[in-house]
């Protein structure tokens, strides 16, 4: 800690930051553009100019850029200094020389950093009297709109896209006042994080294209905090709605997880909520036709079904904890299935067990960024957990930070650190069957079959801790590799092992865990991270239940009369034959979902459930963090939360089959969570993921609209001018209007939007943190259930290393090992109902080792029959392995299997 003097006021501050940050943290309004908390300083825009004085006697001072000047002891500065103000006013005026003044039609309007800074600087008269230069805009694909004339050339976009996110198809072109930011030619931005340009750009050059078609001003939308449902990482989001439609998803800062950045799947995957595939009324199958029926009829129909025999419930790793738990309560533990195959369930349960047992650290995404040696073992994290992949990409910079430290260059001096680090070695090792997006920054990549990667992993663990199981018959090359990587990991202060269940390999996760545990003996900071497939995979693993195979057996035995399947498309897990068998063996299938999935065609009764934006609930991320999402949209009845549907079903039963009185009486989310805590002590803390619905600030609910919300009374004015009472949710502490409490000190889990006096853009976030880039003032969002503290008190006893080392993979003559080629766009279920994501997904291909791609197309025989697929050579793919996109070719294909591969009959070899 140190103190600096800002305009005569002594302000305590930190010594490792720059003066811009220090001024902002001290609450001062100092305008800036090119600086960004996650991107650091480069001194391009010159907007943050202040006066610095060399001592108390210095009256003259000199202009410096606050963002480029480190805090030092006895710093004396002035923001108010006339010369500095003058210069800042000039900078804004220069920026506005070519800016089109099109605020009325600009989608950034009202939440534009440039607008804020212009007002803050006091520029309001146009003195430039010559013509403006104009640019041509580009079509950048389905996510991002481009309006180059609004550009103020802060260079943030390319710095984020290229330097931070590793993209290479966005660049700066030309020079002087003609600089242009875009692509060499029109075309879709390829980077997985392109959508962040919308928030990174301080003006309206890059805007949200899907939002544009349903555009409305920031102050006309409600916002609530939410959690992304498109993978298990659990990125925090803000969801915006108006007129009962979800309009967009924005990043919500969580210092431990996503911080300032969301992946494109998360940002643009929400389209399923408003898609034509949405289920909006109950559908009852009458004479083979699914017809829309009123809620009461649907419940009567269900009561009739339930009276016939046993009810079995199938939950889902994409359904909220409350939904799964209520189903569990309704059907009882003996009849509750997780909705996963045995294999998937084993994997998630193993992941949970390994993380719980891990003697080292369970790093957050943010902590992963500072890992100084990373081993990715058999998981294409860029596809399965995109935001985690981005964190690993940042970890590669650790060596350059140390070089910078030695050169006494502050770490936030971004360009300087990158210059110094240009030859710093990477400490990232990627071992995967196929190429990944991280390869380009890896020190070393290694391509092998999952079993062989696991073997190498075990060998590394043994190298680190001789008491770990050795791998006896390792090839000499691999032994050398194992030794080398082991030493690299042992030399690190904060090593990290990442694996996951993309390839359904227990051995891979065991191997990863063994390495991490071996490292943790000497290095307690040794981290382990395991990637799970769905937003609530971990929560469901902590509840437990029957695998689908058991349900199949019970069905075959005629033991199931009614199946209630909640938010789960079983056709993604079971082969068509299994699905057909299940449907034939169970008289009534009740599907509760928000979207028409292929499974719905087999349902006797379909009940429309609320999507994540229409209800509140809790998800547990892969790192065991319980997080709450809150209702922002109030859909017309009977769309309601999953647990409310289950409750309605229970209430329709007369008499109830089991003592489920608790379930019958739940009034709101708080009560569901209280019951959950009783039933599942390991999930008890989930109730604390966020303050409950009864939370108040000064007796007030929290507002979900901005203070200047307009037009509430005019939304329906073409029907009636009468003001409608704003809708209310018993499950959230939010009022759905502009009335209520709001402020930078509100709990981090409840921040519905970022706004502060003079700051209307997302950059108002700075006001919600004590330290920029640090925790939220109002406390963290979510709570970790797998806290490392759990095993601190127990005696450290030797780690039980896995002992069953797989045999080396031996390519077979008549079959290939087909591995799921998980895709950023295409493999994840819900996002594939979202039009912009559909537009970004590409046709399925069969990936084969480059050496064996002799035909353009081949036939792959999977369980559900032959598939003719175009062939794509995959560099480095080991022999005897084929890649097939998960869920795209055969719907249920998602874990490796052996399959026959043939040439297309009648098609010769490629000449």
């Amino acid at each position, binding site marked *: 800690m140190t103190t600096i003097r800002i305009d005569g006021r002594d302000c305590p501050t930190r010594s490792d930051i720059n003066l811009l940050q220090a001024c902002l943290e001290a609450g001062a309004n100092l305008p800036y553009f090119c600086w960004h908390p996650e991107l650091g300083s480069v001194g391009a825009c010159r907007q943050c100019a202040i006066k610095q004085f060399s001592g108390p006697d210095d009256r003259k001072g000199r202009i410096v850029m606050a963002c480029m000047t480190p805090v030092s002891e006895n710093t004396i500065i002035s923001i108010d200094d006339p010369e500095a103000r003058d210069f800042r006013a000039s900078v804004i005026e220069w920026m506005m020389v070519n800016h089109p003044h099109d605020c009325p039609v600009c989608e950034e309007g009202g939440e534009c950093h440039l607008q804020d800074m212009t007002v803050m600087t006091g520029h309001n008269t146009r003195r430039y009297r010559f013509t403006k230069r104009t640019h041509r805009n580009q079509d950048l694909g389905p996510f991002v709109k481009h309006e180059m004339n609004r550009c103020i050339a802060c260079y943030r976009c390319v710095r984020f896209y*290229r330097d931070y996110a590793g993209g*290479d198809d966005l*660049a*700066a*072109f030309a020079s002087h006042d003609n600089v242009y930011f875009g692509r060499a030619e029109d075309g879709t931005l390829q980077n997985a994080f392109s959508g962040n340009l919308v928030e990174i750009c301080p003006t309206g050059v890059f805007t949200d294209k899907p939002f544009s078609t349903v555009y409305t001003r920031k102050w006309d939308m409600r916002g609530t905090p939410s959690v992304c449902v498109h993978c298990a990482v659990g990125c925090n989001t803000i969801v915006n709605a108006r007129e009962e439609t979800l309009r967009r998803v924005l990043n919500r800062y969580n210092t431990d997880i996503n911080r300032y950045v969301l992946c494109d799947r998360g940002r643009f995957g929400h389209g399923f909520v408003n898609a034509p595939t949405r289920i909006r009324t109950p559908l009852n199958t009458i004479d083979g036709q699914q017809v829309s029926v009123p809620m009461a009829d649907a419940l009567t129909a269900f009561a009739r079904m339930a009276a016939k025999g046993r009810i079995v419930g199938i939950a889902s790793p994409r359904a909220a904890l409350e939904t799964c738990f209520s189903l569990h309560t309704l059907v009882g533990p003996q009849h509750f299935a997780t909705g996963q195959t045995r294999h998937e369930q084993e994997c998630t349960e193993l992941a949970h067990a390994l993380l719980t047992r891990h003697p080292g650290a369970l790093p957050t995404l943010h902590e992963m960024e500072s890992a100084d040696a990373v081993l990715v073992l058999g998981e294409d994290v860029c596809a399965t957990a995109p935001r985690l992949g981005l964190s690993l990409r940042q970890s590669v910079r650790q060596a350059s930070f140390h070089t910078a430290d030695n050169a006494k260059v502050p770490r936030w001096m971004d360009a300087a650190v990158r210059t110094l680090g240009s030859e710093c070695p990477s400490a990232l090792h990627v071992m995967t069957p196929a190429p990944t997006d991280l390869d380009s920054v890896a020190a070393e990549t290694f391509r092998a079959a999952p079993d062989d990667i696991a073997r190498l992993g075990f060998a590394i663990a043994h190298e680190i801790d001789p008491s770990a199981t050795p791998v006896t018959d390792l090839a000499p090359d691999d032994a050398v590799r194992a030794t080398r990587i082991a030493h690299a990991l042992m030399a690190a202060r904060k090593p990290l092992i990442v694996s996951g269940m993309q390839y359904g390999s227990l051995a891979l996760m065991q191997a990863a865990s063994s390495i991490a545990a071996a490292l943790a003996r000497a290095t307690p900071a040794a981290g382990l991270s395991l990637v799970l497939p769905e937003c609530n995979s971990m929560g469901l693993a902590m509840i437990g239940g029957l695998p689908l195979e058991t349900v199949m057996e019970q069905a075959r035995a005629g033991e199931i009369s009614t199946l209630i399947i909640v938010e789960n498309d079983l056709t993604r897990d079971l082969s068509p034959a299994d699905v057909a068998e299940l449907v034939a063996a169970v008289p009534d299938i009740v599907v509760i979902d928000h979207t028409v999935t292929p499974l719905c065609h087999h349902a006797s009764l379909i009940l429309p459930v609320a999507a994540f934006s229409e209800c509140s609930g809790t998800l547990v991320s892969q790192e065991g963090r319980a997080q709450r999402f809150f209702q922002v949209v109030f859909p017309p009845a009977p769309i309601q939360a999953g647990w409310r549907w289950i409750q309605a079903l229970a209430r329709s039963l007369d008499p109830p089959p089991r003592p489920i009185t608790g379930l019958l009486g739940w009034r709101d989310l708080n009560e569901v969570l209280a019951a959950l805590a009783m039933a599942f002590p390991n999930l008890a803390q989930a109730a604390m993921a966020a303050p409950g619905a009864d939370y108040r600030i000064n007796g007030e609910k929290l507002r979900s609209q901005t203070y200047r919300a307009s037009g509430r009374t005019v939304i329906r004015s073409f029907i009636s001018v009468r003001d409608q009472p704003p809708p209310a949710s018993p499950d959230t502490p939010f009022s759905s209007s502009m009335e209520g409490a709001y402020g930078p000190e509100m709990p981090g889990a409840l921040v519905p939007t970022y706004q502060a006096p003079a700051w209307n853009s997302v950059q108002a976030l700075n006001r919600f943190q004590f330290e920029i880039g640090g925790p939220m003032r109002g406390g963290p969002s979510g709570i970790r259930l797998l806290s490392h503290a759990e095993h601190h008190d127990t005696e450290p006893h030797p780690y039980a290393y896995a002992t069953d080392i797989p045999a080396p993979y031996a390519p077979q003559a008549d079959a290939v090992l087909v591995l799921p080629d998980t895709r950023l766009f295409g493999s994840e279920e819900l996002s594939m109902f979202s039009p912009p994501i559909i537009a970004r997904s590409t046709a399925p291909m069969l990936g084969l080792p480059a050496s064996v791609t002799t035909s353009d197309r081949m036939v792959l025989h999977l369980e559900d029959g032959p598939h003719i697929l175009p062939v794509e050579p995959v560099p480095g793919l080991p022999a005897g392995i084929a890649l097939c996109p998960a869920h795209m070719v055969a719907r249920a294909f998602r874990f490796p299997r052996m399959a026959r591969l043939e040439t297309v009959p009648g098609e010769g070899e490629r000449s």
Partner: protein
Amino acid sequence: MWTAEYPLPAPMRAEILALAAQELHPRGASVAALRLVQARFGWVSTVHLREVADLLGISADDLDGVATYFNLLFRRPVGRHVIMLCDSVSCWIMGREPLCAHLCGKLDIRPGETTADNAITLLPTVCIGHCDHAPAMLIDDTLHGDVTTASLDQLIDTLRNTP
């Protein structure tokens, strides 16, 4: 005529790879490689840009950001000959404006344009370090100083007749 050959001739590809190999990182050869292509084809077409980017292992967007940055790299076709008339201060003092007007009239083009017969492109250039012989210009890499309307006319006539 300067039609873009695609792919680049094999020897040129080899030469670009050799340039890249000399650098600590291949991208260090960006400007040299683009100049090589331009020396052969007169300009850098998009297909060639893509090919060079491939050879250097960087994206075309990245390389085009470099190509469009530099004054002497042409991303549009030029005529058989390029006249670069200095427009910097010493030449301006010494009368490059009337000279330029004369040239435009004679060629029937404006600065930045190419004559209808594709023979000559006229470009302004910054100081070419021949200020003691201002006004000065470059015709296809050859320096000419103390240029007058008369000497200019003569030069143009010769140019028109050279392929």
